[in-house]
């Protein structure tokens, strides 16, 4: 794995006995000795610590005021950036001219600049896209900071023990905190469906912070394996799987992330790439939709499984984009795209598993209710 990048926590992962795998150009822990199931359940019961340093951290500054950086950003994504209050973060997607999704990201207003967290595999693309699209803004890739996620019902109590100010943060609040581990950029958010925090820390302080968190009896290290089953139970999209340049945000069930001011009749209607198609789909509905699917029995129905409307014959009507066994759900779960008229809750479809069509039922997302602190 010599040509892979490491994170400031790679040595710690090895010391903890992690199984390392290549992921998005990085050497990352897929699981620790406890294993995926236990790591998943521990996160839902107490708190899991994740290394997400592979994700891109980007600062966008305007030459003049924050106002113009925010306004410029609105040309790249169908999101209300101008009205995002200072100290708050919002989920959004970069779109292309046909309404497809170039990446999904978190975007925070930190007063005199915007702070973005983007997917590892899309970081270089996104930075080039920002530089081309926002020529009057300064785009700075943050390279010397790690990113940790502390997720689960005990996350608040644990992190507040080190950084007292975090207890009063609400879901999607962001703040800068001084600590024994240097300046921390903290948001109350995550990718598990649980309450928790994402913590940007200087590369030099990352390991001592991670060790301080892991010293708490409620905290266990969690790898990418459980991160995937947790996000799938929470009904969250994984870029490159559930969303990509061939899916629009409306098809993907992400219309909630497009605020009214950017929709038809809004004061800043349209003005983002792919607006024609996306605004039309918001009004008239898309032709297909991302849905939750519960397979019958215990066999997981994985990514790529073709979906049929009938038990025998006919062409596929859709495809599964993510599928796994849900450790908390105690059952298999999948997400995929189906024609809009087959997207109603309770619709029975059939997934082709090893040559046999097995029944699946369209189910509301998330599979496991979220525990966010609103």
């Amino acid at each position: 794995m010599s040509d892979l990048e490491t994170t400031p926590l790679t040595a710690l992962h090895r010391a903890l006995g992690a199984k390392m795998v290549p992921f998005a150009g990085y050497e990352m822990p897929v699981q620790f000795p406890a294993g995926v199931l236990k790591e998943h359940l521990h996160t839902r019961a107490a708190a899991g610590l994740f290394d997400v340093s592979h994700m891109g951290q980007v600062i966008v500054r305007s030459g003049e005021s924050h106002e113009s950086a925010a306004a410029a950003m609105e040309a790249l994504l169908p999101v209300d950036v101008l009205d995002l209050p200072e100290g708050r973060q919002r989920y959004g997607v970069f779109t292309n001219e046909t309404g497809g999704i170039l990446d999904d990201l978190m975007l925070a207003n930190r007063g005199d600049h915007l702070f973005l967290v983007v997917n590892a595999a899309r970081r270089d693309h996104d930075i080039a896209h920002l530089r081309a699209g926002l020529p009057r803004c300064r785009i700075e890739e943050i390279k010397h900071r790690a990113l940790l996620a502390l997720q689960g019902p005990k996350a608040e109590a644990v992190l507040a023990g080190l950084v007292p100010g975090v207890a009063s943060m609400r879901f999607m609040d962001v703040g800068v905190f001084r600590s024994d581990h240097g300046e921390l950029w903290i948001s109350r958010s995550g990718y598990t469906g649980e309450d928790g925090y994402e913590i940007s820390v200087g590369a030099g302080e990352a390991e001592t912070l991670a060790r301080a968190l892991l010293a708490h009896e409620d905290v266990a290290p969690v790898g990418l394996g459980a991160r995937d089953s947790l996000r799938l139970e929470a009904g969250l999209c994984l870029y490159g799987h559930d969303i990509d340049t061939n899916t629009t945000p409306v098809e993907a069930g992400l219309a909630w992330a497009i605020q009214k001011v950017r929709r038809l009749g809004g004061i800043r209607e349209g003005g983002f790439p792919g607006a024609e198609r996306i605004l039309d789909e918001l009004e008239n509905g898309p032709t297909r939709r991302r849905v939750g699917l519960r397979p019958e029995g215990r066999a997981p129905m994985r990514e790529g499984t073709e979906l049929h409307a009938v038990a025998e014959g006919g062409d596929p009507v859709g495809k599964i984009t993510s599928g796994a066994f849900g450790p908390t759900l105690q059952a298999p779960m999948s997400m995929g795209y189906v024609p809009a008229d087959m997207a109603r809750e309770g619709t029975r479809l059939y997934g082709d598993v090893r040559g046999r069509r097995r029944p699946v039922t369209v189910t509301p997302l998330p599979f496991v209710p979220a525990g966010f602190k609103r």
Partner: protein
Amino acid sequence: MKFTEEHEWLRDEDGVTVVGITQHAAEQLGDIVFVELPEPGTEVSKDDEVVVIESVKAASDILAPLDGEITEVNEALTDEPGKVNEDPMGDAWFFKIKAAEPSQMDDYMDEAAYQDFLG
């Protein structure tokens, strides 16, 4: 006990062969969440896919190590697939097969050879 390069173990028991996967295989697969077993009475040929295992990571097949007839399957694994991780060499056997050609057993490794094979 004999071992295959597919990380299965075979143990003779009253004229039939009990088949499971090794500790090494169970560790490599990770947490097992689903096991699909064949019907008892099924006639199989060596290298037929007879069992499907799904772990949290991926699906894999278990191949019939011998020609013969499946005489019994371990139904307990259907409800508790995690047993394969807990006791792969003991309680978590998958199926029993009545070999048509018992000499096929001779092709497989003994424990020392399997340990060498693992390296």
